[in-house]
């Protein structure tokens, strides 16, 4: 079986300082992979290199495109952008980084459709309303700007905006960060449902072990730019092999 995403020896340096070094893994269709580590462990650098937001110094990010596996690092910028608005999606930690705050909710959701050539206003709007419903936003808010939305609603709108073109791979950077705990739960449930129903694969960067336990099938633990341990999520969390992971797991406050 061809992996959907195959990361090979991905390295990114900041001068002498290591961003991430020699990271390799395969992600198969329908799999959700979590990346955990403390601030500065290189997990965001890794995510940005994978998603094409940052050029790695070495390594390959091979994605199984509709025309076969391609290294997205060496692919041309227009091709990578096209991927970015069709098969890939990126959910930012702060919704305002991923939304256009001056554009209505409907326009935000419709943008990706229009970017790939949708030119029928009625259909674009119907799709936007359908997606608002799927992320539990009242259809009556379709013409409101996201600046009038709560933090949780903004994050759900960002998800709708990303998933509207039916991507196959979603990159998420701390998707529940900065949200109230009760809002987090609702978002987690929504994400799980969407991942399952759309058969999405996802790479989720977070420092919240509870989030990966609930969302991720597999887990990768990073420290100082390197992967120290990876495996099945509950195995890594319940039977951590590496000293750093043991420290990380034992440091979580129990409720």
């Amino acid at each position, binding site marked *: 079986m061809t992996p959907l995403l195959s990361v090979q020896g991905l390295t990114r340096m900041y001068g002498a300082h290591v961003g991430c070094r020699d990271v390799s893994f395969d992600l198969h269709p329908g799999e959700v992979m979590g990346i955990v580590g403390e601030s500065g462990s290189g997990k965001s650098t890794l995510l940005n290199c994978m998603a094409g937001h940052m050029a790695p110094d070495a390594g390959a990010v091979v994605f199984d495109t509709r025309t076969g596996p391609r290294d997205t690092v060496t692919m041309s910028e227009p091709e990578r952008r096209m991927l970015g608005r069709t098969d890939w999606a990126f959910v930012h930690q702060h919704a305002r980084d991923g939304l256009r705050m001056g554009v*209505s909710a409907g326009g935000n959701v419709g943008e990706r459709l229009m970017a790939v050539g949708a030119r029928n206003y009625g259909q*674009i709007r119907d799709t936007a309303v359908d997606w608002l419903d799927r992320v539990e936003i009242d259809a009556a808010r379709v013409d409101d700007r996201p600046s009038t939305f709560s933090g949780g609603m903004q994050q759900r709108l960002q998800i709708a905006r990303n998933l509207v073109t039916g991507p196959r791979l979603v990159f998420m950077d701390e998707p529940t960060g900065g949200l109230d705990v009760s809002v987090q739960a609702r978002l987690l449930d929504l994400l799980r449902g969407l991942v399952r129903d759309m058969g999405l694969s996802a790479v989720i960067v977070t420092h919240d072990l509870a989030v990966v336990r609930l969302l991720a099938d597999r887990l990768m633990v990073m420290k100082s730019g390197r992967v120290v341990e990876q495996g099945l999520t509950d195995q890594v969390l319940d039977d951590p092999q590496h000293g750093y992971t043991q420290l990380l797991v034992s440091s979580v406050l129990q409720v």
Partner: protein
Amino acid sequence: MSDYNFAYLDEQTKRMIRRALLKALAVPGYQVPFASREMPMPYGWGTGGVQVSAAVLTPADRFKVIDQGADDTTNAVSIRRFFERTAGVATTTRTAEASVIQTRHRIPEEALTDGQILVYQVPIPEPLRFLEPRETETRRMHALEDYGLMHVKLYEDISRHGHIATAYAYPVKVEGRYVMDPSPIPKFDNPKMSDSAAIQLFGAGREQRIYALPPYTQVVSLDFEDHPFEASKADHPCGLCGAEDSYLDEVITDDAGGRMFVCSDTDFCETRRAAGHAGAMNTGKDAA
């Protein structure tokens, strides 16, 4: 003549602008940066257009300037005088007789012909600016033909007003490639840009950009299948010349709500009246 160099600008500057113009003509719709000079008028008064005109004028040219279609408004009169004084070129108000026409916010009603040059004054050349403030990002979007945003703008119009309410500076796509701001002309004028026999040059002084349409370039106004582009105008005939197909200005005539619609293109209106056409408000005094 006077102590000025021909057409005010020094020869090196004109060369620099001509180079930018040639590049702009070679890549229709692409915004070429140029080193805009200080001009003896404030930004927003047509500094970009004036520099382009200065670079293309020759002593044999006949120059016309319009502002919102009119030859006799302050802006048009001062720019016309400026070139009369600094270049000594002949001037005219007749569209058909002019070889170079500088314009603010209109395209003449009379179809332009081979050999004519239309110079537009442009305040903001970047059509993507409305939604994307970063210049680095808009340039990349042009380079990659990443134009989804333009339709987002139109989508927002329809969602808010029920139709595309953008009435001027209506975005166009040039030869299927670059999305271009046509300067703040009414969308009624958009179709005139396409397949025109004249050379069309756009100058933005403050923003330091030049772009162009060579003759017979395809220019398409962006729209949706279910909300197609319409070159709309006020639904009246001209009160003075009776024209049904020209762009109209609304003129308030008294304090009692009286008003009339007249051609915004003064030369077009006068020419029609001279040929004997009369509108409902025209009492016959000046038609005689």
